[in-house]
């Protein structure tokens, strides 16, 4: 469970987030135009960015004061966070080991198959297309079988079949996991939807 409590954030003189309050237990979407602050909110939610005011708790852990929550959380960023010089398999194994797993878990293997990445396992990430990198980063977010998942525009840069597969995966996993995702456009999935506009969540 994620609790976002009275979060304020400004860049320069502009307030991007103005007192965001949100409790996420199930599947939740944050919709908003480009530059509305979705990514900022997600980066604050996972503890990467410090808010000017307010706190975020994941399973009761303040994300700015502890790192225990990090083993329970999976995050898909807009950026590619895989190492370009390593193969996809080497990347996934490295991150798995850092989470304390000796090998890839069943969920990861399943996701690799569903997203058509199995055949690219031994390809270096730098040789993958943008869409394939996005899929690979999506799989990386699930390596530790997290209870809480934050996905920043999970459909961006994907072709239609991959979009369908990602939405299906999100839908399937939403029964057992807390998922918060962002999107610039309406998404065809049953969930709680909020709109971020002018720094306020509606």
């Amino acid at each position, binding site marked *: 469970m994620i609790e976002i409590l009275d979060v304020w954030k400004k860049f320069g003189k502009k307030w991007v987030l103005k007192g965001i309050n949100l409790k996420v237990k199930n599947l939740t979407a944050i919709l908003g135009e480009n530059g509305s602050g979705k990514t900022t909110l997600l980066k604050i939610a996972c503890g990467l960015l410090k808010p000017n005011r307010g706190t975020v708790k994941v399973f009761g852990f303040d994300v700015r004061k502890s790192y225990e929550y990090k083993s329970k959380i999976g995050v898909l960023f807009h950026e590619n966070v895989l*190492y370009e*010089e390593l193969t996809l398999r080497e990347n996934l194994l490295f991150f798995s080991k850092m989470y304390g797993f000796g090998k890839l878990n069943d969920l990861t293997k399943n996701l690799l198959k569903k997203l058509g990445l199995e055949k690219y396992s031994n390809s270096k990430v730098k040789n993958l297309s943008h869409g394939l990198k996005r899929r690979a980063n999506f799989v990386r977010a699930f390596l530790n079988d997290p209870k809480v998942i934050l996905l920043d525009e999970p459909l961006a840069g994907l072709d239609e079949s991959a979009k369908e597969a990602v939405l299906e995966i999100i839908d399937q996993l939403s029964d057992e996991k807390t998922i918060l995702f962002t999107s610039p456009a309406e998404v065809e999935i049953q969930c709680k939807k909020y709109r971020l506009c002018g720094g306020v969540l509606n």
Partner: protein
Amino acid sequence: MKAYYLILKDLKVESRRGFEIISLFLFVLVASFLISQSSYFMSRKITIPAFWLTIIFVSVFVSTTTFVREIDSKTIFGLKLLPISPLLMFISKTAFTYILVISQGFFGMLFLALFSSNWKIFSITPLFIVFSFYLSSVSSFSSALVMYSEGRSFLIPMLIFIFVAPIILTVLKSDVFTLLLESIVLFLTFIALFEFVIEI
């Protein structure tokens, strides 16, 4: 064990950027050749100080491959969200830097010995091992300190030279024990400060 995986990952990434390793190797080779020629025509007294200078430049080069590269390639986001302490992150980056600095340094000593036919240079090995440790922690910390700055490629050499300045006399006096103490104190200080640096 996690520190081992981090170091192994960095070594793998570095080894696949062959052009960087080769250019570093060539720099050490050419610098050693020039130092040996200068010491032959001028004075042998400059050999050791010039060698230390070469090692400092190697550490400047390596600093651009640690935290700075992580932020350039955005992989820092993934790294910061791993369930590891900042202490572990700093120690593993310092160890990775140490491996590169010490390996290049040994090549440098070997080339110097070959070019100048002076095998006595290996007598500085204990000092070199400790100085490399000092440089590695300075290099990693400087890399972390300026990684969010846009002028990082300019700031890193400045910082490294500033951090090295206070121990130059100790190095030139070949006082291994004092240098070891100074290195440990500096390393512990960096560990204490690193959490604040990485969490900015």
